[in-house]
């Protein structure tokens, strides 16, 4: 049964690769590549935001963002059979997307301590603000790492305790589902193309220095 559409899977694995690359370039002082990697992640996040409103059913925020009551009910063991994010997993998805958005936002206005490398919007804020943004950017990454560890922990738990592999479906998009549930309702491919075009356009605008291109 179809669970994840191609845009979501590409988003997931490109994001995985770019986070690893951003980490590596920060650790080994390749800040020019680090900034480009951050801009690529910005594109992905904008795409994901749009796809969360107009994408396939399992990608839509409306299908997986739930109130605390359903999360508690789910945690108390009430049966949950739909395809897509579980109420608890959804919390982790939202937390990751929020922290990553914060991370990119901070990176956009940060500068390195030597005054050599700048996020594309750093000129819009003071040196002190850029310095503070860099410090929080570093701290926030630890939070992101913690969430990633939780994410992988949950995968291992499902694999070895629940006997359910979740990684393969994120690669091939399909999963074996026994319960009689609705499969994913796919969105049109050209909607995805449109979302991507908008995301690239906004990123291009940011790289140019935003508002009226600089100043």
């Amino acid at each position, binding site marked *: 049964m179809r669970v994840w559409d191609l845009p979501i899977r590409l988003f997931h694995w490109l994001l995985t690769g770019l986070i690893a690359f951003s980490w590596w370039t920060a*650790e080994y*002082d390749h800040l020019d590549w680090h900034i480009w990697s951050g801009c690529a992640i910005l594109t992905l996040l904008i795409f994901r935001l749009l796809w969360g409103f107009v994408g396939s059913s399992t990608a839509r925020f409306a299908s997986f963002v739930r109130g605390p009551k359903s999360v508690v009910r789910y945690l108390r063991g009430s049966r949950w059979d739909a395809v897509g994010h579980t109420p608890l997993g959804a919390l982790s998805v939202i937390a990751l997307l929020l922290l990553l958005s914060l991370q990119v936002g901070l990176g956009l206005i940060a*500068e390195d*301590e*030597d*005054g*050599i490398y*700048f996020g*594309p919007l*750093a*000129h819009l804020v003071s*040196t002190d603000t*850029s310095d503070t943004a860099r410090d929080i950017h*570093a701290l926030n990454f630890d939070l992101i790492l913690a969430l990633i560890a939780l994410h992988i922990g949950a995968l291992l738990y499902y694999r070895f305790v629940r006997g359910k592999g979740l990684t393969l479906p994120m690669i091939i998009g399909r999963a074996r589902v026994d319960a009689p549930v609705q499969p994913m309702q796919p969105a049109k491919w050209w909607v995805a193309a449109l979302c991507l075009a908008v995301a690239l356009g906004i990123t291009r605008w940011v790289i140019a*220095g935003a508002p009226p*291109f*600089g*100043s």
Partner: protein
Amino acid sequence: MVRTACVALGAIVLLSCSASKSNQANAASNSVAASAEARTPPKLTHDQALALMKQRNDNMKAMGDAAGKVGKSFQSGSPDLNVIRQAAAQIASLAPKVVSWFPAGTGPDVGKTRAKAEIWQKPEDFASKAHDLSQAATDFNDAAKLGDMNRIKVTFGAMGKTCKACHDLYRAPEH
């Protein structure tokens, strides 16, 4: 254990009278520079060493901040020559002093610093890299005085490379 306590104590003393300490650091810095030529480095007291290290950090930060203002000025799309001139003059006045901020006894074994021990193991290479910065800072300052934006850009970029060349080898990571 004893060393940690000393560092902590030093830091408290430093914080409680930072103004007088920085004067003392200036004096220490000058005497170190003077005596380095005579090849008889005096032994620094622990407090003197910590004061020097703090001032070194402040000076380095001042140079980084000044460079950052220039970079942002360019990034804004309408570079401000006054901002650039002020920053260039500040960097050019600090750069020739860099080596004097690293007297023996101000390394990572003495207190919290990102200066690596290699600085004192390869003093000639370190001094040559500091000299590169000093030269590049002069070039940048000259260009800023002339006001030729293209030359300013080129010399500023070249100066950034000399910062990085030294930091890559002799500065430990921030975290």
